[in-house]
């Protein structure tokens, strides 16, 4: 993935968050809480549990569909970061070689099951996090976190990250472009040059930080970034959190696919 595509992806995620749908209009706090609940419940499943996780896909699918977020874009992003999950789980099939039967007549090593569980949990949590960002403006998330009690210092760090990631990436892109144009056929694209570019970018960032701090002091900054927006937590937000939380709890306690399977089996029998 080149810097340019990374930049355009972040930009796209950002533009998606300025749309206006039912999901976008929910209070950021409601979405943050629901997403956190979702992640905690998904991760809490035991390591050989795969089938029971499947009903949880309903949450990202619904949020994405109602929020009008292109599913392909989110799927591509999930795949792009999947190597992390693959590396975490890849040795499970080797070390955990006890066998389990997953269907009549089909036996595999337990390691493969736990590997699959890791991948499913990963896909669920990452897509939910991406959808949170794609359906909530970043400043909105920050305000939500602040009002949920996150210390002001962390919140202002996040706000500055959001504001300057675009400036920094553009700067990095310009430097890399300048290097590419003068490194004919590979020479100059080595690690040594790359390290020095990182050094330059770091120094520029420090200098920029100093200038920004100067601009903040010039406008009376004394430690806390003030904000005037106060979203109102409406009944619909509470309903969203309750319904989502209730669904997660249900799927956590009752093994839905197995139950449905048994029901169908019972009807057929």
């Amino acid at each position, binding site marked *: 993935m080149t810097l340019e595509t990374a930049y355009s992806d972040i930009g796209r995620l*950002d533009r998606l968050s300025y749309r206006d749908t039912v999901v976008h209009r929910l209070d950021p706090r409601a979405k943050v809480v629901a997403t956190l609940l979702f992640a905690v419940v998904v991760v809490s499943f035991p390591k050989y549990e795969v089938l029971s996780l499947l009903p949880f896909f309903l949450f990202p699918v619904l949020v994405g569909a109602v929020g009008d977020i292109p599913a392909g874009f989110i799927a591509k992003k999930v795949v792009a970061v999947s190597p992390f999950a693959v590396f975490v789980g890849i040795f499970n099939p080797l070390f955990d070689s006890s066998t389990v039967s997953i269907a009549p007549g089909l036996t595999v090593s337990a390691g493969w099951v736990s590997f699959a569980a890791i991948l499913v949990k990963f896909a669920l949590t990452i897509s939910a996090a991406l959808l949170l960002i794609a359906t909530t403006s970043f*400043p909105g998330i920050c305000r939500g976190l602040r009002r949920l009690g996150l210390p002001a210092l962390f919140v202002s760090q996040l*706000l500055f990250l959001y504001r300057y990631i*675009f400036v920094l990436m553009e700067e990095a892109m310009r430097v890399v472009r300048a290097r590419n144009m003068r490194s004919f056929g590979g020479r100059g694209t080595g690690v040594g040059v790359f390290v020095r570019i990182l050094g330059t970018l770091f120094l520029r960032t420090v200098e920029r930080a100093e200038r920004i701090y100067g*601009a903040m002091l010039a*406008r*009376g900054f*004394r430690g806390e970034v003030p904000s005037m927006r106060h979203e109102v937590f409406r009944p619909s937000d509470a309903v969203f959190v309750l319904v989502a939380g209730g669904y997660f709890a249900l799927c956590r306690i009752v093994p839905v696919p197995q139950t449905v399977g048994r029901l169908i089996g019972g009807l057929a029998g």
Partner: protein
Amino acid sequence: MSHHIIEFRDVRFRYPDGTDALKGVSFRITHGESVGIVGANGAGKSTLLLHMNGYLLPTSGHVTIGEVPLVKETRQEIRRKVGVVFQNPDDQLFMPTVFDDVAFGPLNLGLPPDRVRERVHEALRQVNALALVDKPPHHLSGGQKSAVAIATVIAMEPDILVMDEPAASLDPKSRRSVIGLLNTFTHSKIVASHDLDLILDVCARCLVIRDGAIVADGPSPEILSDAMLLSENNLELPLTLQGRPSVCPVPRP
């Protein structure tokens, strides 16, 4: 009114690395004046501007803003009187939306929310950027960023407006609208720039700084038409005073 006066008396400043950036600067700017500061790269313009709101404090000498001497304890008070617009709008606009950014100063001044909202709208209206109020700064063009950067400072209603290269890297039309904007302000104005035509259009008086000292101080039309003085300071005559024919003659073989 005597309280919008800026006075520098024998101000010297040395950076921690030992560079003497200001070597005895003295001048006095009275209420309502508009003053340009010009000079070569590295002459000390930016260092001078950073003294005007107390971001830097003089190593020796005195800075007085209004009746208030600039010392560590009075910096907050002085920042309320002197608004500084920095050169790069990306450094000036650090909040996630235009509204939040323009509201930053007034909120820090402790104004009630409805007053803040009024000030934000008034400031953005003055710079013709009211339509941008909910945009994030990284979605703005260069000219829009400059206009909003100026709004962030005038929203604090300072007595004195200090600007570093207000029109750098703007296209000619955006530059012209910034010049028009500056001319509508009745504040005392101090503008540092290499754009001598801009100084000529905006400032009645001009200071030339070289090597950390003032080498000329007088009416802009006089200073900026002194070709000798300008070339000694790595500057040249403003384009409007160069007397070029309006159409370049085609050279013949």
